[in-house]
Each structure stands twice: as structure tokens, then as C-alpha cells.
């Protein structure tokens, strides 16, 4: 992988990471988007889309409500797309593991970021309580800078994991196939459970069921 590609991946992972909470929130942090673009960067958009789809199923669980904890799928999806590059679709299971594990680490990194922000705001408390606009601006920009560093480090961690996976794959093809099957299965379960929850109460089953029938019809009629 060239230095240019690596830099592009790092930059994209950082953008996807800060999009989650700090800046814009236009959802380039969603795994489907982040992995698709990462796939384009490494020259295998299809692999990016596929691994992004699996991670997107898992991301359907996330409700970024208030101070809730949630995994960071943006940088994770970038790493997973790199791990999936050139891999046949039925063997992307290990790449999904890279994505899930990086997203899980991302959860902790967000907690650490919030603590750092809190410490900074405490230091600025007296100036903020006086209505000092410079203190407000300083806190805002420092928050963005910290999140950018966090996202970059998380992307680097994920890419490191992807590198290890690509150069050290002890498992047999059959095992990787089984991993893909099981991880897709858990992803589908996640989407189904959350689809029902979003529909609300018993109506959730009805709406999910109607959708399922529509999806099956689409599949049969295309």
C-alpha cells in the first residue's frame, strides 16, 4: 500500500470519526458510507460495500441518545474495508471482526474524549461563567482537535489490525467461510430485533413483517 493511499485512508477515517458527534453529523460515519469510500480508495469498492453492509446491520442497534455509549463504526469500517480488499465475498468474516473490534475500541475512545473535554471545561469554568467568548471558542476548537486525534488514532489502530490480519491468516478457508456466515447471521438478527423495536410494541412485528414480505417479493420478482 502506497503512502498516498495510507494517508487518504487516515484522512477519511478521521473525517468519518469526527462526523459521528463533533462536526456535521451528515452520517459519512455510517459503516456503509465509510467502508464504500474506503473500498474506492484501496481500489476494491465491492469489498468495501459488502463489509460495510455487514457492519451497517450491526450499526442499526446504535441510538446515539444523549450521553449514551456507542461504538464508533466510521474508522472501524475504513479498517474493515482494507482488510476485505481482494477477498472473495464469502470470506470477509475476518474483515468484519476487524471492524467490530475497532468499533468496540472506539466506544472506549469516545468515553476518554468526553473525560478530556470535561477536564478542559473545568479549567475554563471561571472564564465561561464570566461569559468570555474566547473561552467558548477555545473549548469548541479544542474539542474538535481532540476528536480528530482520537479518530486518527482509532483509524491507525484498525489499519494495524487489518495489516496483521492480511499478513497472518492462520485459519483455513472453511473457518473464514463459517465466520462470514455466523457474523452475517448475528448482523441480520441485530437488524431484525431493532426493526421490531423501532416499529413500537406489537405494531413493530406488523411493520417489520409487512416489510419482510415486500423484501421477499422484491427478491422474487426482480
Amino acid at each position: 500500500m502506497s503512502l498516498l493511499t495510507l494517508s487518504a485512508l487516515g484522512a477519511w477515517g478521521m473525517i468519518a470519526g469526527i462526523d459521528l458527534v463533533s462536526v456535521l453529523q451528515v452520517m459519512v460515519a455510517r459503516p456503509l458510507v465509510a467502508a464504500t469510500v474506503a473500498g474506492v480508495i484501496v481500489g476494491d469498492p465491492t469489498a468495501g460495500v459488502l463489509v460495510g453492509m455487514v457492519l451497517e446491520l450491526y450499526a442499526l442497534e446504535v441510538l446515539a441518545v444523549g450521553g449514551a455509549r456507542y461504538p464508533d463504526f466510521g474508522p472501524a469500517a475504513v479498517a474493515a474495508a482494507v482488510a476485505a480488499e481482494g477477498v472473495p465475498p464469502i470470506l470477509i468474516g475476518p474483515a468484519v471482526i476487524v471492524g467490530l473490534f475497532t468499533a468496540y475500541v472506539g466506544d472506549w475512545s469516545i468515553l476518554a474524549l468526553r473525560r478530556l473535554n470535561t477536564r478542559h471545561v473545568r479549567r475554563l469554568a471561571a472564564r465561561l461563567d464570566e461569559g468570555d467568548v474566547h473561552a467558548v471558542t477555545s473549548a469548541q476548537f479544542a474539542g474538535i482537535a481532540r476528536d480528530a486525534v482520537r479518530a486518527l488514532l482509532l483509524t491507525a489502530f484498525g489499519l494495524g489490525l487489518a495489516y496483521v490480519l492480511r499478513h497472518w491468516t492462520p485459519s483455513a478457508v472453511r473457518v473464514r467461510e463459517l465466520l462470514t456466515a455466523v457474523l452475517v447471521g448475528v448482523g441480520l438478527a441485530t437488524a431484525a430485533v431493532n426493526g421490531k423495536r423501532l416499529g413500537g410494541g406489537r405494531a413493530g412485528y406488523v411493520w417489520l413483517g409487512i416489510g419482510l414480505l415486500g423484501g421477499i417479493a422484491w427478491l422474487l420478482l426482480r
Partner: protein
Amino acid sequence: MAAPSVSAIVRSGLRLLTVQACWNYERMIGIGLAYTSEPMLRSLPGGRTGARYRDAMRRATRYFNAHPYLAGLAAGALARAEHDDVPGEQTDRLRTALLGPLGAIGDRLVWAGTLPAASAVGLALSADAPAGIGAAALLALYNVPHIALRLWGLRAGWRYGTKVGRALGAPFLTTALRLVGPLAAGAIGVALPLVAHRLAGDLDVAGWTATAVAAIVGVIVLRWVAPRLGAVRLGLLAALAVLVGTAW
């Protein structure tokens, strides 16, 4: 009252995109709200060096939390209250009163409605269309209402001021709140068979069986056995079980 200029409102709108940049446990998005409101407060009597501006900024930085897309409603309403010379205690009460509704409405409308619906459409199209179409659809379907909601919030907040509660009863909001949940559930339902076919379609019978078993066990665990475990941890545990099982 010297109303803020159009450029000040535009600047506030852009700053609203970073309202959570300094999310922290003490003031939550209070700093972001102050940063968003600040351009609209510059036109207070006395300007940026005046006592009114400083008092307003002091109040603006206090604890606040809401859905980020609806935070503009609070920013606009609070800035308007400062311009209308509403007493500080009343502005503080307004701020407190907005905490719950703006969080609850935004969470239901966006996180539990628009986002999963857009995600499901993106997934369905990714399964059935050329690479990139699904991701593009997700971004488009999500961001049109997202940006519209932010802009509407800021404008409605400024227009209604202390009577901002009226804006929350807007017919489009109540209709959207009623529809988005079922819409998201239905869209996920449509996406599921298409995604399953795309991702597991090339597996052999044993692979299909493994996918089906994992899906059934996954539903049971996430719905009834350990709903707090979370999908990511369940996925990692399942992968570990496969690796250990096959090694053994």
C-alpha cells in the same frame, strides 16, 4: 430591538453543525449552544463589549442538552429572549423547559426514525444496485430532512422566542413522529431478505444453515436473554466461539 443580520443567522446555522464539538459531562452541549448563539447575540445593545452581550453569553454557556439537530430551536429562542430583554431567570427557566422535549422529539424523529429508515434503504439498494448507490441513497435520504430540520429549528426558535413551545406542535412534526418509527421498521423488513441474499447467497448449504442458526440465536439473545449485551459484543463472542470451536 436590533435583530441579528442575515449573515449572523447564517453563521449561527453553520456553527450549529458543531454544537456537540465539546460534549462534556458537566455542561453537555452548553458550550456548543453558546458558540451557536454567539453571532446572534452580537447585535444586542452595547455590542460585543456591552453588559447585555456578556450576560447573555454567561447564561448561554451553562448546562444544556438536547438533540443536536433541534438545538437550533433553543439557540434561536434563547437569543430572541435576550434581544427581547426577557429577565435572566425567565430565560433560564425556558432553557430548562426545553431540555426534555427537544431531546425526546429529536431522538424519536432522527435516531429512531429517519436514520434507520435511510440506512435500511441504503442497505437494500447496496444489495441490488451498483456499488456506491446504496451509500449515496443513505446520505441523500438522511441529509435532506436533517439539514431542513436544523434550519427550521433555528428560524422557528428566533421567530417564537419564549413561546417556542408552539413550534414543537407544528403539524409536520407530529405527523413525522407518528410515521417514522413504522416506516423504519418496514424499511428494515424490506432490506433484510435482500441483504441476506446478497451476503450469504454464495455460501453452500452448511453456510446458509450457520447463518440461519446464528440469526435465530442472535434474535433470542438480543431480544430476551441479554438485551444489554449489545450486537458488537455478541458478534465478537460468536466469532470467538467459531474460532475456538474449529480449533478444538
